[in-house]
């Protein structure tokens, strides 16, 4: 049967009836003392990273503006764009968990900035991401499934340039600014929070209107190169890393080892992605801050499938699965566990697991 990813459709109803929604998930055992130590918050790592991030953004945009409209400005815009349209994705994510900084206000400030850059309403997306963690890759429940089945490869390609996401983001911003909440948003945002989503959308609409007005008055693309367009020309990195998180793996299971992927990546990408390459670990223990994820990985890797050794290796693993899913959408990759791991609960997942490649 074809999957229906709508949050109000038959798969959503089935997930609730079968107990897949809001289920108990598998966790690797870790002593409480060790877990407590890993969960401890700190301001220093994220303050350092935020200064580097904003410093580089000011520098690259400044050089881009100085060299504009020469093509010599292009590399600086590309670098600025990746920080605006991709690094802000990971900042949005970490701050939505409240784990980037120890000080709550710092989390909230960076969260608001990152949400603006990524065109993600800070209210709606906080709730959608909470649902993503409750019902990770549960069809009809998770509103953040990036690779659906069968995979819409052209949509994914367009999203490397931010086209679908930005179109949706700006569309939803205008929709919310008109005083309305979409029925799917209403499924996961409490009524008491909905006016906040509308207020933010109106503020953003005003900022975009001012930017467009400035571009028209100066008859220059430059204001939009700084605000708005980098969401398109800088999106590729967060799509590249984001697709690896769950692409080609199982859906409708309650064990993150089956539906999430950990990948070893280069240090620059890790800075941009804020260590979310440790994705099984993050889903299993979302309270562990990004800067402690490598330690968490060391502590529980005996119980997880082997990480992919590089981005290239992750795509080499994922691509054939996605191609196969075009014809047969129940196909997915089930990765082997090491001998030291607790086995997958086949009995529990039998109905969902279907035909897997190993």
């Amino acid at each position, binding site marked *: 049967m074809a999957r229906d990813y709508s949050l109000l459709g038959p798969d959503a109803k089935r997930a609730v009836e079968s107990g897949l929604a809001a289920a108990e998930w598998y966790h690797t055992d870790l002593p409480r003392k060790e877990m*407590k130590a890993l969960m401890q918050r700190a301001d220093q790592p994220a303050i350092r990273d935020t200064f580097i991030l904003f410093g580089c953004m000011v520098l690259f945009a400044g050089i881009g503006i100085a060299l504009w409209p020469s093509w010599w400005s292009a590399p600086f815009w590309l670098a600025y764009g990746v920080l605006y349209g991709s690094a802000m994705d990971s900042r949005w994510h970490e701050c939505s968990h409240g784990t980037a900084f*120890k000080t709550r206000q710092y989390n909230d400030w960076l969260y608001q900035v990152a949400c603006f850059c990524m065109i993600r309403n800070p209210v709606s997306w906080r709730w959608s991401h909470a649902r993503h963690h409750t019902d990770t890759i549960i069809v009809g429940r998770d509103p953040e499934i990036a690779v659906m089945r069968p995979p819409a490869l052209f949509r994914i390609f367009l999203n490397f340039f931010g086209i679908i996401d930005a179109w949706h983001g700006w569309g939803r911003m205008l929709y919310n600014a008109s005083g309305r909440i979409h029925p799917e948003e209403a499924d996961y945002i409490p009524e008491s929070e909905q006016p906040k989503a509308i207020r933010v959308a109106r503020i953003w609409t005003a900022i975009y209107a001012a930017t467009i007005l400035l571009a028209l008055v100066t008859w220059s693309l430059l204001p939009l190169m700084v605000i708005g367009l980098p969401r398109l020309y800088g999106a590729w990195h967060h799509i590249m890393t984001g697709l690896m998180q769950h692409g080609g793996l199982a859906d409708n299971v309650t064990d993150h080892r089956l539906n999430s992927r950990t990948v070893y990546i280069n240090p620059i990408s890790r800075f941009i992605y804020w260590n979310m390459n440790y994705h099984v670990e993050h889903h299993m223990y979302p309270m562990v801050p990004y800067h402690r994820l490598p330690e968490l990985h060391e502590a529980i890797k005996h119980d997880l499938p082997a990480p992919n050794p590089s981005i290239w290796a992750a795509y080499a693993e994922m691509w054939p699965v996605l191609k196969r899913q075009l014809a047969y959408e129940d196909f997915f990759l089930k990765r082997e566990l090491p001998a030291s791991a607790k086995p997958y609960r086949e009995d529990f997942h039998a109905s969902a697991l279907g035909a897997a490649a190993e």
Partner: protein
Amino acid sequence: MAWIDACATDEIDEEDLIRFDHDGKTFAIYHAPDGAFYCTDGLCTHEKVHLEDGLVMEYEIECPKHNATFDYRTGEALRAPACVNLNTYSVKIEAGRVMIEV
């Protein structure tokens, strides 16, 4: 309402919590950094995840699933996705035992 013997004071590390189940209900008992003890409902008001694996930071408890935060002294919800406060219960210490009134 009755006072129930929940645990020994030394069963809970400072700035930590334990789970306590009684009569079909589940509670969270906290040992605050100032040495005081507190008790709330055990389940987060957002999606009923148990708080026992959460993180106690000074006088706040953070839910392990979605990072909702509460002041465990008052039960006040401090951070989304929780919007509803936790119920709190009176606590007293008698002969090294934590007693809760439920």
